[in-house]
């Protein structure tokens, strides 16, 4: 696996900045969970923050920001499939008549 060409090297300050951002976002998530905005909104907020954190990890720690468009496109596919895997069973369950008891 020899390097064929000059690969873009990300410098430590960038990594440290990302880590700090992640710490802060984690604090925000915990703080936001303490505020009652209703189930749905709380869930959306928590997942949105988590997704933002995940994007930071992917873009910077995993170098995605500096990788080829091909890889970006490739990643889209499992993400879309994941969405479908999550969405359709939920849709099924919530549209069943009198879906089973809480």
């Amino acid at each position, binding site marked *: *696996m*020899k*390097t*064929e060409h000059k*690969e873009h*090297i*990300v*410098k*430590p300050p960038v*990594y*440290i900045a*990302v*880590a700090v951002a*992640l*710490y802060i976002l*984690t604090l925000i*998530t*915990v703080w936001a*969970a303490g505020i*009652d*905005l209703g*189930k749905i909104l*709380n*869930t959306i907020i*928590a*997942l949105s*923050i*988590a997704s933002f*954190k*995940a994007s930071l*990890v*992917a873009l*910077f*720690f*995993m*170098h995605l920001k500096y*990788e080829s468009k091909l*890889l970006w496109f*490739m*990643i889209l*596919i*499992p*993400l879309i*499939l*994941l969405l479908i*895997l*999550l969405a359709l*069973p*939920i849709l099924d*369950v*919530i549209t069943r008549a009198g*879906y*089973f008891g*809480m």
Partner: protein
Amino acid sequence: MEQVLEKHHDVEEKHAGLEGAKMGMWLFLFTELLLFGGLFAAYAVFHTIYAKDFEIAHHHLNRTIGFINTLILITSSLTMALSVWSAQTNRKGLLNLFLLLTILLGTAFLVIKLAFEWPVKFAEGLYPGGKEFNHLLQEGHRGQALFFSLYFMLTGLHGLHVLVGVLVLLGILFMALRNTFSSEYYGPVEVSGLYWHLVDLIWIYLFPLFYLIK
């Protein structure tokens, strides 16, 4: 009638190379996304059905420990990224240091989980087959029982991945100590790093879904 081919003498022989190895690892990570995806789908369905029960059950989890473990994993991702940078810039001493730190942080995550979190649940009987778990079922609080089943399956599978990651990184550290890596050759470090970040990524979702339910 043969296809017309020109046989040049120095046609470049193709190899997978670093880019190929990275692509291969990304493809493998996609499979991990979908593996956990199935579990997340189960979680999503049951959280939807048993929203109240999940909220009640989640109070049994220790939010502080979850928070600390989140910080630990984030830091381990930082040290992992820094170890890749060290290899890329030929800083062999730092490479060893950051790899070691990543391993220690990963181990700390596991120790905290296995010594401070799970045993509490076992003692409380809140695990599949446990006393309190069965009690919940008998009382009709099936959603709460499911919460704990999901908790152990998801954090268990994730923990297994952390363990595998730690073992892989130990192997990488061994190789690094034997001077295998340099700015000319660091593929295995980078590729292992990708795996490690995924483990962090999954936890980033697990933490709010289990510890911060409203």
